[in-house]
Protein backbone atom coordinates (compact mmCIF):
# COMPACT_ATOMS: atom_id res chain seq x y z
CA UNK A 1 0.00 0.00 0.00
CA UNK A 2 2.74 2.35 1.02
CA UNK A 3 4.74 1.33 -1.99
CA UNK A 4 1.79 1.90 -4.18
CA UNK A 5 1.21 5.32 -2.86
CA UNK A 6 4.87 6.13 -3.25
CA UNK A 7 4.90 4.99 -6.82
CA UNK A 8 1.76 6.88 -7.63
CA UNK A 9 3.06 10.03 -6.05
CA UNK A 10 6.32 9.57 -7.89
CA UNK A 11 4.45 9.22 -11.14
CA UNK A 12 2.28 12.10 -10.26
CA UNK A 13 5.26 14.28 -9.56
CA UNK A 14 6.87 13.35 -12.81
CA UNK A 15 3.60 13.94 -14.54
CA UNK A 16 3.27 17.24 -12.84
CA UNK A 17 6.84 18.00 -13.60
CA UNK A 18 6.27 17.28 -17.22
CA UNK A 19 3.21 19.33 -17.52
CA UNK A 20 4.62 22.75 -16.79
CA UNK A 21 7.49 21.95 -19.08
CA UNK A 22 5.14 21.18 -21.87
CA UNK A 23 2.96 24.21 -21.73
CA UNK A 24 5.59 26.87 -22.34
CA UNK A 25 6.90 24.74 -25.16
CA UNK A 26 3.48 24.55 -26.64
CA UNK A 27 2.80 28.21 -26.43
CA UNK A 28 6.16 29.03 -27.94
CA UNK A 29 5.53 26.55 -30.72
CA UNK A 30 2.25 28.17 -31.57
CA UNK A 31 2.87 30.95 -34.06
CA UNK A 32 1.75 34.27 -32.67
CA UNK A 33 -1.02 35.16 -35.01
CA UNK A 34 -2.52 31.78 -35.67
CA UNK A 35 -6.10 31.98 -36.71
CA UNK A 36 -8.78 29.41 -36.35
CA UNK A 37 -9.67 29.43 -32.69
CA UNK A 38 -12.96 30.92 -31.73
CA UNK A 39 -12.80 34.49 -30.57
CA UNK A 40 -9.70 36.43 -29.81
CA UNK A 41 -9.18 35.27 -26.30
CA UNK A 42 -5.41 35.25 -26.36
CA UNK A 43 -4.28 38.68 -25.51
CA UNK A 44 -1.12 39.10 -27.49
CA UNK A 45 -0.85 42.77 -26.94
CA UNK A 46 -1.44 45.51 -29.49
CA UNK A 47 -0.73 44.29 -32.96
CA UNK A 48 0.21 46.59 -35.78
CA UNK A 49 -1.92 44.81 -38.39
CA UNK A 50 -5.10 44.95 -36.37
CA UNK A 51 -8.00 47.36 -36.78
CA UNK A 52 -6.58 50.79 -36.36
CA UNK A 53 -5.61 51.82 -32.89
CA UNK A 54 -7.47 49.23 -30.87
CA UNK A 55 -5.31 48.31 -27.91
CA UNK A 56 -6.02 46.14 -24.95
CA UNK A 57 -9.26 44.88 -26.44
CA UNK A 58 -9.69 41.17 -26.57
CA UNK A 59 -11.32 40.67 -29.95
CA UNK A 60 -9.06 41.10 -32.92
CA UNK A 61 -9.29 40.37 -36.57
CA UNK A 62 -6.90 37.56 -37.25
CA UNK A 63 -5.31 38.89 -40.40
CA UNK A 64 -6.45 41.30 -43.02
CA UNK A 65 -8.77 38.75 -44.57
CA UNK A 66 -10.00 39.63 -48.00
CA UNK A 67 -13.41 39.00 -49.42
CA UNK A 68 -13.13 36.04 -51.73
CA UNK A 69 -15.85 37.35 -54.01
CA UNK A 70 -14.34 40.78 -54.37
CA UNK A 71 -10.93 39.38 -55.19
CA UNK A 72 -12.08 36.82 -57.72
CA UNK A 73 -14.73 39.18 -59.08
CA UNK A 74 -17.51 36.66 -58.69
CA UNK A 75 -20.63 38.69 -59.33
CA UNK A 76 -23.42 36.20 -59.06
CA UNK A 77 -23.56 33.94 -56.06
CA UNK A 78 -25.61 31.09 -57.40
CA UNK A 79 -27.63 28.98 -55.01
CA UNK A 80 -27.01 25.98 -57.25
CA UNK A 81 -23.29 26.14 -56.65
CA UNK A 82 -23.38 24.15 -53.45
CA UNK A 83 -19.65 23.54 -53.37
CA UNK A 84 -18.87 27.23 -53.23
CA UNK A 85 -21.60 27.82 -50.68
CA UNK A 86 -20.44 24.88 -48.61
CA UNK A 87 -17.19 26.70 -47.92
CA UNK A 88 -19.06 29.34 -45.94
CA UNK A 89 -21.08 26.92 -43.90
CA UNK A 90 -19.87 25.27 -40.72
CA UNK A 91 -18.92 21.69 -41.42
CA UNK A 92 -20.19 20.28 -38.15
CA UNK A 93 -23.42 22.10 -37.68
CA UNK A 94 -24.31 23.44 -41.11
CA UNK A 95 -24.62 26.98 -39.75
CA UNK A 96 -23.65 29.99 -41.83
CA UNK A 97 -20.23 31.18 -40.72
CA UNK A 98 -20.08 34.84 -39.61
CA UNK A 99 -18.23 37.16 -41.90
CA UNK A 100 -15.65 38.15 -39.31
CA UNK A 101 -14.28 34.62 -39.62
CA UNK A 102 -14.49 34.29 -43.37
CA UNK A 103 -13.57 37.85 -44.29
CA UNK A 104 -16.44 38.34 -46.71
CA UNK A 105 -17.61 41.90 -47.25
CA UNK A 106 -21.11 42.90 -46.20
CA UNK A 107 -23.01 43.01 -49.52
CA UNK A 108 -21.55 39.68 -50.52
CA UNK A 109 -22.34 38.17 -47.16
CA UNK A 110 -25.96 39.21 -47.53
CA UNK A 111 -26.21 37.66 -50.99
CA UNK A 112 -24.36 34.61 -49.79
CA UNK A 113 -26.67 34.03 -46.89
CA UNK A 114 -29.78 34.32 -49.05
CA UNK A 115 -28.21 31.91 -51.55
CA UNK A 116 -27.45 29.48 -48.75
CA UNK A 117 -31.03 29.72 -47.52
CA UNK A 118 -32.32 29.01 -51.03
CA UNK A 119 -29.98 26.05 -51.32
CA UNK A 120 -31.21 24.75 -47.98
CA UNK A 121 -34.79 24.93 -49.17
CA UNK A 122 -34.04 22.86 -52.24
CA UNK A 123 -32.08 20.26 -50.23
CA UNK A 124 -28.68 21.11 -51.67
CA UNK A 125 -27.42 22.07 -48.23
CA UNK A 126 -28.68 20.80 -44.91
CA UNK A 127 -30.44 22.99 -42.40
CA UNK A 128 -28.46 21.44 -39.59
CA UNK A 129 -25.92 18.73 -39.25
CA UNK A 130 -23.20 17.45 -41.47
CA UNK A 131 -23.60 17.58 -45.22
CA UNK A 132 -23.44 13.99 -46.38
Amino acid at each position, binding site marked *: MADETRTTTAEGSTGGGERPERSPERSSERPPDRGGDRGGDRNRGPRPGGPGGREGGRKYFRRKKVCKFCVEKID*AIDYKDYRLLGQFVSIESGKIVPRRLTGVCTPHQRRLSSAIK*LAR*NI*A*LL*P*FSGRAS
Partner: protein
Amino acid sequence: MNRTYELMFIVRPDMPEEEQQKLISTLETVVTSSGGSVHKVDVMGKRRLAYTVRKFHDGIYVLLVLEGSGGLVHELERRLRVTEQVIKFITVRIDEAQKRLDKIKKLREAKRKAPPSPAPAEAGGETAAVTA
Protein backbone atom coordinates in the same frame (compact mmCIF):
# COMPACT_ATOMS: atom_id res chain seq x y z
CA MET B 1 -44.30 39.23 -69.91
CA ASN B 2 -40.62 39.92 -69.48
CA ARG B 3 -39.99 38.25 -66.14
CA THR B 4 -37.43 35.50 -66.17
CA TYR B 5 -37.82 32.73 -63.66
CA GLU B 6 -35.77 29.76 -62.69
CA LEU B 7 -37.80 26.81 -61.58
CA MET B 8 -35.99 23.96 -59.95
CA PHE B 9 -37.75 20.86 -58.83
CA ILE B 10 -36.84 17.48 -57.49
CA VAL B 11 -38.41 14.33 -58.82
CA ARG B 12 -38.54 10.95 -57.16
CA PRO B 13 -35.45 8.89 -57.92
CA ASP B 14 -37.47 5.88 -59.03
CA MET B 15 -39.27 7.73 -61.78
CA PRO B 16 -38.56 6.29 -65.24
CA GLU B 17 -37.04 8.59 -67.80
CA GLU B 18 -39.98 8.58 -70.17
CA GLU B 19 -42.24 9.82 -67.42
CA GLN B 20 -39.74 12.55 -66.66
CA GLN B 21 -39.80 13.64 -70.27
CA LYS B 22 -43.58 13.57 -70.26
CA LEU B 23 -43.71 15.77 -67.22
CA ILE B 24 -41.21 18.23 -68.66
CA SER B 25 -43.04 18.45 -71.98
CA THR B 26 -46.33 19.00 -70.15
CA LEU B 27 -44.80 21.90 -68.30
CA GLU B 28 -43.34 23.29 -71.51
CA THR B 29 -46.71 23.22 -73.23
CA VAL B 30 -48.25 25.04 -70.29
CA VAL B 31 -45.59 27.71 -70.60
CA THR B 32 -45.93 28.19 -74.33
CA SER B 33 -49.70 28.10 -74.27
CA SER B 34 -49.83 31.00 -71.81
CA GLY B 35 -47.52 33.04 -73.96
CA GLY B 36 -44.23 32.44 -72.23
CA SER B 37 -41.09 30.86 -73.53
CA VAL B 38 -38.75 28.23 -72.21
CA HIS B 39 -35.11 29.24 -72.30
CA LYS B 40 -33.49 26.14 -70.96
CA VAL B 41 -34.34 22.73 -69.62
CA ASP B 42 -31.64 20.95 -67.71
CA VAL B 43 -31.99 17.58 -66.07
CA MET B 44 -29.21 17.74 -63.56
CA GLY B 45 -29.33 14.09 -62.66
CA LYS B 46 -29.65 12.11 -59.52
CA ARG B 47 -28.18 13.64 -56.41
CA ARG B 48 -28.15 12.78 -52.78
CA LEU B 49 -30.39 15.10 -50.84
CA ALA B 50 -29.04 16.99 -47.85
CA TYR B 51 -31.99 15.85 -45.76
CA THR B 52 -34.82 13.39 -46.11
CA VAL B 53 -37.73 14.66 -48.13
CA ARG B 54 -40.87 12.53 -48.06
CA LYS B 55 -38.76 9.58 -47.00
CA PHE B 56 -36.46 9.89 -50.02
CA HIS B 57 -32.71 10.25 -49.70
CA ASP B 58 -31.97 10.85 -53.38
CA GLY B 59 -33.68 12.80 -56.05
CA ILE B 60 -33.45 13.81 -59.66
CA TYR B 61 -32.99 17.54 -60.05
CA VAL B 62 -34.53 19.34 -62.98
CA LEU B 63 -33.95 22.98 -63.82
CA LEU B 64 -36.27 24.99 -66.00
CA VAL B 65 -35.51 28.55 -67.05
CA LEU B 66 -38.51 30.27 -68.48
CA GLU B 67 -39.87 33.65 -69.30
CA GLY B 68 -43.40 34.59 -68.50
CA SER B 69 -45.74 36.32 -66.14
CA GLY B 70 -46.39 35.71 -62.48
CA GLY B 71 -49.67 34.00 -63.23
CA LEU B 72 -47.85 31.47 -65.35
CA VAL B 73 -45.56 30.59 -62.49
CA HIS B 74 -48.57 30.25 -60.23
CA GLU B 75 -50.09 27.76 -62.64
CA LEU B 76 -46.86 25.79 -62.99
CA GLU B 77 -46.44 25.56 -59.25
CA ARG B 78 -49.99 24.38 -58.87
CA ARG B 79 -49.31 21.58 -61.32
CA LEU B 80 -46.11 20.61 -59.60
CA ARG B 81 -47.82 20.52 -56.27
CA VAL B 82 -50.44 18.17 -57.65
CA THR B 83 -47.92 15.88 -59.33
CA GLU B 84 -47.04 13.15 -56.92
CA GLN B 85 -43.62 12.46 -58.35
CA VAL B 86 -42.37 15.96 -57.66
CA ILE B 87 -41.21 16.14 -54.07
CA LYS B 88 -39.86 19.68 -53.89
CA PHE B 89 -39.76 22.77 -56.04
CA ILE B 90 -38.54 26.31 -55.82
CA THR B 91 -39.00 29.29 -58.12
CA VAL B 92 -36.56 32.13 -58.24
CA ARG B 93 -37.01 35.32 -60.19
CA ILE B 94 -33.79 36.14 -61.97
CA ASP B 95 -34.41 39.04 -64.31
CA GLU B 96 -33.45 41.72 -61.81
CA ALA B 97 -30.26 39.90 -60.93
CA GLN B 98 -29.52 39.40 -64.61
CA LYS B 99 -29.99 43.12 -65.24
CA ARG B 100 -27.54 43.95 -62.49
CA LEU B 101 -24.99 41.49 -63.84
CA ASP B 102 -25.30 42.85 -67.35
CA LYS B 103 -24.79 46.36 -66.04
CA ILE B 104 -21.65 45.34 -64.16
CA LYS B 105 -20.32 43.56 -67.22
CA LYS B 106 -20.94 46.60 -69.38
CA LEU B 107 -19.10 48.81 -66.94
CA ARG B 108 -16.21 46.41 -66.93
CA GLU B 109 -16.09 46.29 -70.72
CA ALA B 110 -16.18 50.06 -70.88
CA LYS B 111 -13.32 50.28 -68.41
CA ARG B 112 -11.29 47.78 -70.36
CA LYS B 113 -11.86 49.50 -73.70
CA ALA B 114 -10.96 52.92 -72.35
CA PRO B 115 -7.45 52.27 -71.05
CA PRO B 116 -6.33 54.34 -68.06
CA SER B 117 -4.48 56.91 -70.22
CA PRO B 118 -6.80 59.78 -69.33
CA ALA B 119 -5.69 59.41 -65.68
CA PRO B 120 -2.14 60.81 -65.98
CA ALA B 121 -3.37 63.55 -68.34
CA GLU B 122 -5.96 64.54 -65.75
CA ALA B 123 -3.39 64.56 -63.00
CA GLY B 124 -1.12 66.76 -65.10
CA GLY B 125 -4.01 69.08 -65.83
CA GLU B 126 -4.89 69.31 -62.15
CA THR B 127 -1.37 70.09 -61.05
CA ALA B 128 -1.11 72.72 -63.77
CA ALA B 129 -4.29 74.32 -62.52
CA VAL B 130 -2.98 74.32 -58.95
CA THR B 131 0.28 75.97 -59.87
CA ALA B 132 -1.51 78.52 -62.05
